């Protein structure tokens, strides 16, 4: 296969240049409104715990395996280890993704690991590994936030002890407006972005990533907005778990 030729999508419309028309978003949402959120724990039969999460068109499935013996030879540790692996399906975007882990997936995995390590009580499974696999079936914006939510729900489904559930959301800044839960088109036009993973009941930040330039006022505004978003997602995740257990 010739790797020099990039795959050209069959149906390639241009990405919209303007994502805010007359002060509203293209899909008609308010600036601080999520897309349709759907989550379901316990979707994989082979995994210790699993979950499926959907924010609009972004679809993620997460599986948790363990605690189990590490496959790699690793040094002794009195704490357990968490291993995160985020994978983008090769058909998840317009362009086909080449085989194998790319740098973006590595970065997503590392950021998810930081977010979840803060919540999981690693000392409850010394020497053992918990593996979390996230597969992004469709990537349509806010991928990392959806992955973290799905993984956190899967961990709860697996009965792994956590300090608190982790919920996450992201925000894009477009033309000075803060857009909660951006779509891919919106993220393409952003000049700054934020991702926050929170443990709302413990009031603790598990992961935070800001890009672009932020004034102090706007930085705290975006963090406040994200915190509000995380609290909404957290409430929904808890409700999902209760319904699944009933």
């Amino acid at each position: 296969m010739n790797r020099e030729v990039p795959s050209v999508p069959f149906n390639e419309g241009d990405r919209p240049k303007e994502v805010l028309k007359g002060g509203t978003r293209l899909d008609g949402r308010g600036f601080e409104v999520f897309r349709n959120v759907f989550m379901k724990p316990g979707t994989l039969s082979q995994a210790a715990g699993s979950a499926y999460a959907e924010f609009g068109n972004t679809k993620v499935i997460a599986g948790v395996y363990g605690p189990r013996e590490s496959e790699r030879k690793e040094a002794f540790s009195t704490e357990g280890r968490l291993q995160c692996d985020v994978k983008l399906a090769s058909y998840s975007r317009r362009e086909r993704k080449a085989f194998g882990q790319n740098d973006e997936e590595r970065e997503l995995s590392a950021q998810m690991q930081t977010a979840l390590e803060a919540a999981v009580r690693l000392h409850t499974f010394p020497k053992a590994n918990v593996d979390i696999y996230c597969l992004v079936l469709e990537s349509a914006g806010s991928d990392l936030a959806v992955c973290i939510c799905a993984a956190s729900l899967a961990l709860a489904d697996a009965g792994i002890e956590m300090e608190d559930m982790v919920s996450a959301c992201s925000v894009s800044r477009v033309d000075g407006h803060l857009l909660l839960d951006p779509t891919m088109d919106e993220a393409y036009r952003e000049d700054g972005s934020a991702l926050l993973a929170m443990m709302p009941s413990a009031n603790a930040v598990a992961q935070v990533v800001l890009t672009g330039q932020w004034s102090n006022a706007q930085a705290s505004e975006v963090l406040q907005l994200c915190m509000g978003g995380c609290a909404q997602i957290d409430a929904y995740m808890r409700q999902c778990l209760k319904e699944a257990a009933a």
Partner: protein
Amino acid sequence: MIGKDLKHLGNTDVLVGVKAEIGIPLEETPDCGGLQVTVECSPCAGPSYQGRSGEELGIELTKSLERYLKPGRSGKGGCVDLRALSIVSGRRCWILCIDALVLAADGSLLDALSITAKAALQDTRIPLVEVGATENPGEEPELELDDDPAHATQVDTSNIPVIITVSQAGRAYILDASSQEETCIDSAIQLAVDSSGAVCGLSKLGPSALNPAVLQEMMAMGQQQGPPLAEALDTFVKSSASLMQQ
């Protein structure tokens, strides 16, 4: 065309070289030049950098550095103005390659890399390019390079931030942690701060969660360090440049 710099931060040694190449701009951003970052961790930097783990750390550092320097996919929000690197819209542009080598690692790697990269960019000269007139628009533009260094242009580095890692151990916050100190840290934030003290990027590291109030305090502490560090770097680069001329 080239700039390079060596920085010592305690026992951390990094070497950064910047090269400029002529390339083709991305389809999405025809009026922007390119920026490419690579960080390599030499196995002689420390025993933990052999083989795969060194490679993985290199990719992680590359991604973080890129996140702070590069604009988003829209070409907006970055700290290096890529529009200044355009030569012929949609056809030719300058691509800046920032190649960093970690020679010795003793904590605060990303801090050292960002400072050195900024210094190297300040030192970078881009030759003047004259575009020959072409009759039909489909024809490849003819470029003529002016090799007189007096006509070369500089990269605008005034908005490029430096990265400051603020670590938290118990109730104390530490700046510029050594690798020994890094082993006993609960969590840390990497804060990109420009010369005015504004936040240009943020990411959390480490296994523990952070209280939002603590996060704000750590951010404020990092922001305070930005302006004096940028000023010190500026005077250092200027004095070493005048030494070179003598």
